[in-house]
């Protein structure tokens, strides 16, 4: 966030419009009688404010307003067109008693753990390996990153075909070695495994690139010192690389938490609803993530108030998880 620049008389920049060094001066008590220059100072930068305004205007219209409007909606009953009816905390009471909501939370958490852990571990290992690669560096990096920029819908359709119960590629391969078909897309656990696998495949490369950037910032002298002290590659990894990379790991853990808990497209495309069954999430609703349940409640059942209640309850959960993550990852850092 940029705060309005503090401009005392001494801080008037030499040339028109230039930011001047005063911008980064520490805030201090303004001397009496400086009201006029301060106002002028704010107005003086109107071009800069105008230049950055498109983002904030769009942000206000399409993010800020809807977020708080949804909070308002969580206390109403509304079908999207008719008149709203204030119902107080009723939606949240329904939520508390709704087994499908709790099922969706469980599904989301399981899928999140099943995808985030292998994603981050895999990314760290891959980044370490790639860091020591001498040839075809560019090729490896691009190849590992490509899944992340592939259309998620295309990937989901592909996974759906590959893991198809009766005629999928995976079951066909298992069949050739004498293993009977595995119900990938109907067993409640395997459904989650397939979704998690899809997310792992998409996000490993992204995290790998971030880790790689972090690794490249570690001076080689540290490694040389470790080598001289007789540390092997495994020990170097755990005692040099991981501790130095801690802030980067923290970043990826938090981003993965936020992304992983918001899984929506993957199960939505894998288990598209059909006319016969309006419920989403596949057999047994085992792939019903919380966001998918929100989508179903609000946009398929026209119950916008309940949908809003679902996402706000879920928001609280994400906040709790991010704080827990933060505490775990930064543990022992200050002590």
């Amino acid at each position: 966030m940029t705060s309005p620049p503090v401009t005392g008389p001494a801080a008037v920049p030499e040339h028109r419009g230039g930011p001047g060094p005063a911008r980064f001066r520490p805030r201090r008590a303004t001397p009496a009688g400086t009201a006029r220059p301060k106002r002028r100072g704010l107005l003086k930068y109107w071009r800069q404010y105008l230049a950055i305004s498109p983002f904030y205007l769009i942000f206000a219209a399409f993010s800020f307003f809807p977020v708080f409007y949804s909070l308002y909606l969580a206390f109403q009953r509304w079908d999207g067109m008719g008149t709203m009816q204030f119902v107080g905390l009723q939606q949240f009471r329904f939520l508390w008693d709704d087994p499908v909501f709790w099922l969706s939370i469980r599904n989301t958490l399981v899928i999140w753990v099943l995808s985030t852990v292998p994603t981050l571990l895999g990314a760290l290992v891959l980044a370490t390996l790639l860091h020591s690669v001498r040839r075809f560096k560019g090729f490896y990096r691009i190849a590992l990153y490509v899944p992340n920029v592939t259309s998620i819908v295309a990937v989901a359709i592909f996974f759906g075909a590959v893991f198809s119960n009766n005629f999928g590629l995976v079951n066909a391969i298992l069949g050739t070695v004498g293993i009977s078909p595995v119900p990938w897309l109907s067993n409640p656990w395997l459904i989650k495994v397939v979704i998690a696998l899809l997310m792992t495949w998409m996000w490993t490369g992204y995290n790998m690139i971030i880790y790689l950037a972090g690794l490249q910032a570690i001076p080689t002298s540290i490694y040389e010192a470790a080598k001289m002290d007789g540390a092997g590659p495994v020990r170097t990894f755990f005692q040099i690389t991981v501790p130095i990379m801690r802030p980067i790991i923290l970043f990826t853990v938090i981003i993965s938490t936020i992304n992983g808990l918001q899984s929506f497209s993957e199960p939505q495309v894998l288990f598209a609803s059909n006319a016969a069954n309006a419920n989403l999430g596949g057999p047994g609703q085992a792939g019903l993530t919380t966001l998918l349940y929100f989508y179903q409640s609000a946009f398929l059942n026209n119950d916008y108030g309940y949908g809003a209640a679902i996402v706000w309850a879920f928001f609280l959960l994400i906040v709790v998880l991010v704080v827990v993550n933060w505490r775990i990852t930064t543990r022992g850092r200050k002590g």
Partner: protein
Amino acid sequence: MDLSRRGFLQAAALTAAASGLTVACGGSSGSGGTKNGKNLTLWYWGGALSDKVVAEAKTHFASAVTLTTASIGGDFKQKLTTTLAAGTSVPDITGIKGEDIASFLPNASRFLDLNDLGFKKLSSQYLGWKTKLAQTKDGKQIGFPIDIGPTALFYREDFFAKAGVDTDPAKVAALVKTWDDYFQLGTELQKKNPGTYLVNNISSVFNIAVGQGTQRFIDKDNHFIGDQDHIHAAWTTAIRPYTLGIDAKINDQTWNAAVGKNLLTELGAAWHALDIEQAAPQTKGKWRVCANPVGPANQGGSYLALPKQCRNPEEAFKIISWILSPTNDARGFTDAAIFPAAPAAYAMPAMTGPDAFFGGQKIIEVFGPAAKAIPDSYEAPADAAVMAPYMTELTNIEAKGKKPDDAWKDAVSQAKQIARRQGVN
């Protein structure tokens, strides 16, 4: 003076802001037009209407109005809801899907009453049960029926012949008069055709069994009745093929691969013929159709409606009654496989021809009578949402081997909850 880059940027930014403002204002002032507008827009989705008939409508009415059509992709209902709620850029004529019509009825004030525009005189040409589904309790007609989805039993003639069953549609229909007869036939067929199944999943049985009745999950007084005998009977019927082992338990896209291989029959609406044809073109000529057990139900079938903001209601009504006249409705069947809601169309050459996919069978002889025999039923706005847990629990039985009795209890308790959330008492 230096007309610097900064100066240029300022001017550009101001121009952009000003034009944005103009557009915003222009948009809102455009909607408050008079009621004899010359430009009409029609929203529908791919396959809802015959594109040829729509194109002809444009030229047919060119002297009176300019008709612009938009084929809206994605979640049609959601887009229509948003537009109606916003109140601007509302289409003058819009399609509404059959499964969504009930949820628009509480907001009937957003639409024009077609009876005021002359639908009363035309309504006898269309199936009464279909018309009533788009009517409010006080008799306001918001939807003009496009098509319907009468159900029937599709069956594999070759599998039947192999089991020594007479494959003539009338004979098969007589064999499967009741659900019990149908399931019994299924077990016999399965013995002669190892590895095959009678039904693709038990949800399809439940869906039709519920649709055969006059009552669904919520009654006219807005009470939840999904725990009563009529639903429980449909549930018990649906469980039978599962316990008999003649249920293929297909609940995903693998249906596409299975339909040409190991399914003996398919329960579905008239439009389902196209699904089968596309999924299993190699089975051309091997399928037949006959009446499904007990009696027909309806699945799907859409409407055209005129939102309140319609800029020229008289002309718009003329257009929709032209597009949906029995003659043009019959053409919709040829062009887009939409089954007309006007019974007069069933006798027209467009519909009475033999169908090569069904071995030259005249399938209208099955669907025509079925269409007329579908019972009047009441579908509450929350019906689709309340029905969903039953479907999910039926899937749970198939996928997880959940005990049918437990599944029933869970389905009812969840349906009750959803009903309460939706304001049903």
